[in-house]
Structures are given as structure tokens and as C-alpha cells.
């Protein structure tokens, strides 16, 4: 019950702020709504038993990425409104309608599937080799479990991600700097 209340409250906030992010005229306000949205998503993660991810969400998204957005918004000191020019070929309305249709369809699928066997028959065992090690870890805590997986089964993706970040770092410097 308490979980349901929490879920619906958080969902309402998440969706509400998301709508505000998309619809607000002032870019800075939009960014602030985005931060709030992220914080509520982090709260949702806590609700889902993923405190480590929640902390990462706050640290990286709220504390890092969105600060970047704020910087850029402040640096891009616009003399005229960014929405001033409108290309007549763009079919924004059609996109809006299509997106709504997709949402309705997904909702319909969810509604249809509500009684159906969407869930697996039982919470089945995780299909990995390190299953036993992970289940041993689960007793210790969420952070250890994630760390264990990250540095064993997913070490190579992890390294690839680190390379991606390095490349992105260099790319961002090259792009943003006026003269190298």
C-alpha cells in the first residue's frame, strides 16, 4: 500500500515535471524542471531498491550533466527567442499525434496484457555464470552486487564505456574550444 502511494506520487511528479520540461518557454526553468525530474527518478530508484543507482543518478545527472546544460544555456546568450523561426516544412503536429497514438497503443497493449502471462511464471534464476556469486553478494548489498557484475561479467563493456567517455571528453574539448 505504502509502496503504491509512493509509486503513484513519484510517477505523478516525474510525468508532471517531464511535461513541464518539454513545454516551458524559459529554457532555464526547463532545465530546473529537468533537475527535479531527475531527483524524483532517483527517488523511484530508491523505491525500486537501487540506492546506488539513485546516488549515481543524482551525482551524474543532477550534479554533472544538468549543470552542463545550465552552463550552455547561460553561455548561449540569445538576442532573440530561440523559437522565433519556424520552418513551414516541419510536421510538428503530425509528430505530436503519432507520439500520442503510440502511447495509446502501448497503453492498450498493457491493458490487454494485464490478465495475461506477461510476468515469467516465477522469478527465475538470473541466467549468468556468476549467479551463485551474485546471490552470495545480494546479502551484502546492492552496491557490491552491481560492482561485482560490473567488474566481472561486464568488464569489457565497462572498459568500452570508459573509452567512450574519454573520446567524448576530447571531442567536447575540440568542439567547444575556439582555438586549439
Amino acid at each position, binding site marked *: 500500500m505504502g*509502496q*503504491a502511494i509512493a509509486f503513484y506520487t513519484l*510517477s505523478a511528479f*516525474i*510525468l508532471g515535471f*517531464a511535461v513541464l*520540461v*518539454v513545454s516551458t518557454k524559459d*529554457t532555464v526553468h*526547463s*532545465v530546473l524542471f529537468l533537475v527535479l525530474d531527475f531527483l524524483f*527518478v532517483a527517488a523511484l530508484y530508491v523505491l*525500486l*531498491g*537501487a540506492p*546506488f*543507482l539513485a546516488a549515481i*543518478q543524482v551525482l*551524474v*545527472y543532477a550534479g554533472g*550533466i544538468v549543470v552542463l*546544460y545550465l552552463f*550552455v544555456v547561460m553561455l*548561449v546568450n*540569445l538576442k532573440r527567442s*530561440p*523559437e522565433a*523561426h519556424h520552418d513551414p516544412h516541419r510536421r510538428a503536429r503530425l*509528430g*505530436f499525434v*503519432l*507520439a*500520442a497514438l*503510440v*502511447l495509446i497503443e502501448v*497503453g492498450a497493449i*498493457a491493458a490487454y496484457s*494485464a490478465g495475461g502471462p506477461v*510476468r*515469467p511464471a516465477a522469478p527465475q534464476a*538470473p541466467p*549468468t555464470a556468476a549467479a551463485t556469486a551474485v546471490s552470495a553478494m545480494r546479502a551484502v548489498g*546492492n552496491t557490491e*552486487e*552491481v560492482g*561485482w*557484475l*560490473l567488474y566481472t561479467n*561486464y568488464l569489457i563493456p*565497462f572498459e568500452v*564505456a570508459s573509452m*567512450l*567517455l574519454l573520446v*567524448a*571528453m576530447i*571531442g*567536447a574539448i575540440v*568542439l*567547444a574550444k*575556439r582555438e586549439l
Partner: protein
Amino acid sequence: MITPTHYMLLSAALFIIGVIGVMVRRNIIIIFMSIELILNAVNINLVAFSREWQHAVGQVFAIFVVAVAAAEAAVGLGIILAFYRNKETVNIDEMNLMKW
């Protein structure tokens, strides 16, 4: 009882809001933020199923998504800045050099 279906619906709604933002807004910074929303929608799904299956692999992938989002934001904002320096605008409708 909150089932994964609920989380999926929340995720789908957040996703569609992000998509609408990408479709409708002309300020490229807002579009980027909409993309962040989309990525968060995906993460919610991943974490929800991580909980459902009692396995942390979903969270691991969420971390990868966060890493990719960070890279995307860095490069994307760099591009925005570079573009702004050249054209004094962040309106995506004015970024049409590739058209016929």
C-alpha cells in the same frame, strides 16, 4: 500491487513525453533535454526489471546508459556551442544546411 507493467507504463509515458519534446520543440537545448528524458525512461524500465528478476544486471546497464548520456551531453553541448558561435542561434529549424 505495483507490477512491472506499471513501471512500463510510466516509462512509456515518460518516453513519449520525451519524443514529443524532440518532435515539437525548436530549441535544440530542450531537444537534448528531451533525449535525456527518453534515456531516463529506459533506465526506469531497466531498474524495474532488475528488481523484478532480483538481478543487478539491469542496474549495470542503467549505469552504462548514464555513461552514454554523459558522453552524449558533453559532445552534443559542444556541438551546440560550436554551432551557436557560427550562426548565433540554437533553433533547429535553422540547422538545415544538408537539405536539397
